[in-house]
């Protein structure tokens, strides 16, 4: 009896030691994973892509009903203010018609001047339309998962736009999935310019709802309400995609920009295939959808 008790006590002690040992091993394994991730970024990138490709079908299954529910809620909300909304839209429409006339006139004039100056246009952009199937909106990352990938001609570095403006750029591409990093992500540094003054700057995200404008030449002349557009520096983005507007000017480094894209309502986006994606060699654009570029995508 006593021997049995002794044995049990010993077994218990061994188990406790083993458990502690197991914890140490697990902690070391976690650290190991982190160090490997730091050392071998290619491996981690591949693992990310694999995880994305695996999770993407499950997410798509979740995303569709969620999108429908969200749309229904939005519809119901809009229903309440239908009358005012109509009046507002009618007014906006008449204002935009005036703008359209101005735009047509300017486009004609632009074309003629380009002909005169023998201006060589940049490559024509084409689009790949994608559904947002997942958000990676943690406290540390601002991004989303798309349901198109290499199979549709998506490559890293391409611009992702919505109707309102630039949303971000493609960071990782799987076979049938891709991850967008939003312009508000902390790792996003975008070459832009101030539309009014043509001043070059870098637009940096910091994971908040707004971005920081870091000016190359100084801040004089930046006003609240100035539109910020892509400058095309670096070659991978078309020139002149609207990004956001200045909401707060001031001292150096404290110019804040609000993005035009409403990231909380993203459902469909377009990946811009601009032909040149930096150093990455792109194959022929396969099933890009529409060839008609909206005015925003055109150069100036």
């Amino acid at each position, binding site marked *: 009896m006593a021997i049995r008790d002794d044995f049990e006590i010993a077994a218990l002690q061994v188990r406790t030691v083993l458990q502690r040992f197991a914890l140490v091993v697990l902690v070391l394994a976690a650290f190991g994973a982190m160090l490997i991730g730091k050392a071998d970024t290619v491996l981690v990138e591949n693992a990310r892509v694999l995880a994305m490709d695996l999770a993407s079908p499950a997410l798509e299954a979740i995303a569709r009903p969620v999108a429908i529910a969200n749309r229904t809620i939005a519809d119901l909300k809009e229903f309440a203010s239908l009358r005012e909304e109509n009046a507002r839209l009618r007014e906006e429409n008449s204002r935009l018609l005036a703008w359209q006339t101005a735009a047509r006139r300017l486009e004609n004039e632009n074309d003629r001047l380009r002909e005169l100056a023998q201006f060589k246009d940049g490559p024509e952009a084409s689009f790949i339309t994608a559904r947002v199937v997942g958000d990676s909106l943690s406290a540390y990352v601002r991004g989303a998962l798309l349901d198109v990938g290499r199979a549709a001609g998506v490559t890293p570095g391409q611009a992702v736009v919505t109707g309102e403006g630039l949303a971000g750029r493609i960071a990782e591409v799987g076979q049938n999935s891709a991850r967008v990093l939003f312009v508000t992500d902390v*790792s996003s540094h975008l070459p832009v310019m101030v539309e009014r003054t043509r001043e070059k700057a870098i637009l940096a995200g910091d994971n908040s709802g707004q971005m920081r404008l870091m000016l190359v030449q100084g801040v004089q002349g930046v006003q609240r309400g100035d539109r910020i557009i892509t400058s095309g520096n670096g070659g991978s983005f078309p020139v002149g995609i609207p990004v956001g507007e200045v909401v707060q000017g001031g001292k150096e480094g404290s110019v804040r920009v609000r993005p035009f894209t409403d990231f909380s309502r993203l459902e469909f986006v377009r990946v811009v295939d601009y032909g040149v994606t930096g150093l990455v060699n792109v194959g022929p654009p396969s099933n890009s959808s529409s060839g008609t570029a909206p005015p925003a995508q055109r150069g100036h």
Partner: protein
Amino acid sequence: MRADGALIALDRLGRLLLPGVVLLFFVILTLAPLRLPYLSDILPLLPVLAVFQFSLATPERLPGPFLLAMGVLLDLLLGGPGAPVGVSALGFVLVRAAVVGSRRHLVGVPFLFQWVGFCILSWAFVALVWAFTSLWTWTVIDPVPAMMQYAVMIVAYPLLAPLLARVRARDPLNVPELSRGTARPGETTT
């Protein structure tokens, strides 16, 4: 074996796999585009809730290597460029170890104690992830969004914990003495 033997076996298997399946579901759910205010805030912390809640009663159903794998998967799915892969795994393993190590303060006690326990442990988790992410990307990341998520999560805990407790297979107080702690089924050979 009687006719319902197979059903019992199935039931047992289901209970055995349930915590793991719920954790996997929560890990994938962190990416789901639920654009509801507050609800999308708690998504990144739901896996921690699952780890905490299931470790209270049945830690042997969330074995360490599985937690490690889930943590790495979560980091791969959520992480941006440069973010550490494995920090959530570290957090999960530590949360489970902390829960198992302080069972007498957390199991069979008033709900408030569990809540406080969750507040402390999930704070540690959030702080850990923040610290490592800042360190790895070598930038001081604004801790306010992370703290907001944390705040929403601990407020939501009283709503979510009972749900998971219902999912939980058995009463923690009925756990045989020897299978308490991290022992896996089959490890106790008495």
